[in-house]
């Protein structure tokens, strides 16, 4: 249990960089382990596969006294509205959802950002209807890119654990104060048991202090009393139009200011392996793990290939990518969705973007064997050679 007396220790450094013990747990269990250490006041849940198990475990945390309030709400839109209400009231909240649940709740995500709520939500991505799919797929991330929410993408259970804690740290910075979605590819991460390193149970985040929020707390204890903390209604009036626009700009600016905190708490928005390579695979989520394997296979064949793991999708590491790919001839972007949102983001960011190959793309429950990635790289190289170099 997060003990009150430990409030004054440098718990953040200890939590992120202190001693850790081995645990052999699933991604869903990792979520609960993170929430246990996050000093969460309240969590609200609604079932959807593959997210449910993690929120069952969060419910057990409530039953054991780790969380002060918890309930099962009537649908995902209601959940996201209720955590919004709870965050307005000045506390730390947690929830999670998945695929169709994300879409059903969609209206609330820009509201969270617009109201500057430091809500952390875990998204355990899956396919969306129609045709119905409960298979791993992260198309929902492409649909959330412009909600104003910050977005982190976990490669595995360890990332999922760490990123939930890091998400609170970034979200609650006074110059950020925005919601953070922590995304993991459902089933692959949620239902896979792996060895993780966890800090001791009583090593927790310090409690949330609403006094540091850049917006007034909604509790009738914080002046001004005449406040509407939510996105301003934009009627046909020049002044309210301007107020709305400048508020919106500030939400975007807050996301930009998050960059330095992501760098500080997470060691950067991306990670580069073999930076001198001419051929790169750039990926996020579990596609990174598949790409690591593909990399090993290609290196065994004597190919000089590098890997870029993108951890932060919003803010997007545009300048970092441009720099890392400056001398690259080819960038292959494997994805677990049909839309190819990551390839689109990278193409929109770097110059000479004909270098970007948006493949392979798997969805609807297909797996991504590493040879599929290797094939795409070779195909692109072959095409490049026939064109006279890529």
């Amino acid at each position, binding site marked *: 249990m997060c003990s009150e007396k430990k409030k004054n220790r440098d718990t953040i450094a200890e939590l992120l960089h202190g001693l850790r013990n081995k645990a052999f747990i699933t991604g869903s269990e990792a979520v609960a382990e993170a929430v246990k250490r996050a000093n969460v*006041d*309240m969590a*609200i849940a609604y079932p959807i596969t593959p997210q449910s198990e993690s929120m069952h475990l969060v419910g057990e945390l409530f039953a054991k006294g780790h969380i*002060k*309030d918890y*309930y099962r*709400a*009537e*649908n995902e*839109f*209601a*959940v996201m*509205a*209720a*955590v*919004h*209400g*709870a*965050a*307005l*009231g*000045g*506390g730390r*909240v947690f929830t999670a959802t998945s695929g169709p649940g994300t879409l059903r709740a969609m*209206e*609330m995500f820009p*509201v969270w950002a617009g*109201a500057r709520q430091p809500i952390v939500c875990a998204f355990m991505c899956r396919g969306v209807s129609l045709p119905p799919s409960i298979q791993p797929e992260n198309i929902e991330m492409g649909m959330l890119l412009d909600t104003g929410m910050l977005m982190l993408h976990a490669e595995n259970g360890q990332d999922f654990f760490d990123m939930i804690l890091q998400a609170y740290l970034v979200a609650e910075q006074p110059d950020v104060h925005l919601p953070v979605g922590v995304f993991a590819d459902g089933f692959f991460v949620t239902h896979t048991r792996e060895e993780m390193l966890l800090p001791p149970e009583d090593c927790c985040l310090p409690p949330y202090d609403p006094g540091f929020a850049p917006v007034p707390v*909604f*509790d*009738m*204890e*914080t*002046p001004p*009393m*005449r*406040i*509407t*903390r*939510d*996105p301003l*209604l934009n009627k046909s009036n020049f002044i309210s139009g301007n107020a709305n626009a400048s508020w919106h700009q500030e939400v975007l600016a807050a996301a930009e200011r998050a960059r330095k905190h992501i760098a500080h708490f997470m060691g950067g928005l991306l990670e580069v392996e073999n930076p001198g390579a001419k051929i790169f695979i750039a990926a996020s989520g579990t596609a990174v793990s598949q790409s690591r394997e593909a990399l090993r296979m290609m290196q065994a064949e004597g190919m000089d290939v590098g890997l870029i793991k993108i951890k932060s999708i919003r803010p997007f590491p545009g300048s970092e990518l441009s720099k890392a790919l400056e001398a690259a001839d080819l960038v292959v972007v494997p994805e677990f969705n049909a839309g190819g949102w990551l390839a689109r983001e990278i193409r929109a960011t770097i110059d000479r973007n004909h270098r970007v190959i948006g493949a392979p793309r798997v969805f609807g429950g297909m797996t991504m064997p590493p040879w599929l990635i290797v094939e795409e790289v070779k195909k692109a190289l072959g095409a490049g050679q026939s064109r006279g170099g890529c």
Partner: protein
Amino acid sequence: MSKKIITPVASLAHILPEDYRDLVEKGPHGKSVGIKDLGSFKEITEEHPHCAGCGVSLGVRLALAALPAPEDTLVVGTPGCSFFALSQTAVNYSNTAFGNQNSVASGLKRMLSIRYPDKDKDVVVMAGDGGIADIGLDMTLHSWFRGEKISTIMLDNEVYGNTGGQESGMSPEGQVLHMAPKGKNFKKIPVFEMARTAGCVYGARVTIASPKRLGRAVNRAILLARELGPTYVQIYTPCPTNMKFSPADTIRIAKEAGSTHYAFEEFMTEEAALRIAVMEGEQGKIQD
């Protein structure tokens, strides 16, 4: 909130607008004032931006005047005509997405109970018929099923006012409206009856033509929600603009409704009745 929070330091008081200074000096905070005292204290809302003769604006004004503790009241609503008065009221007002008011209120009330375990923070939903009976009906009902300690006040103008006069689930059967070009073909949604079934410990149906009765209903609803569970007040607030009657006739229309389809009705659980007897014994009986 303590009055100290809004009291300016003496040397700066003169730069604040007069209505703010009035609120500090003559406002309802910490006093037991209500509808019967209107005119003798500074109200927490004024200068509404609604159409002339708007029933909603009167409903908002009366309900706000009846709050037992405006200094610790937080209002949650949804976009619509009610927004315009509420967003410029001297209470914290939240208006987020469409129809989610009872969910936002549930989370807010619970968090305030965590943060202020020894204080009553009254969370009041105030929204129109479209927000409560149509787009937000599931969340309204579920907050009642769960027994959330919040009060829900419907400002029922029987139409979507702000979007230009479309049919709402609370419009009367047969009424010709936008999106009901041949007349509404089903009855008013029985939200009042549903409130009783869904677990509200107290409910009242009133019109703006009976201000004291309205005030008493709102007061009872909020005080009972503090201790016992969800409460519901449904206020008839006719809309001259979309129902096409003269703004001067609003009260007459409301009065007529009071003797036809909007007759006053109240329900309460036994526990609520006992609580009311104690509370109103303490306060001195409020006259109709």
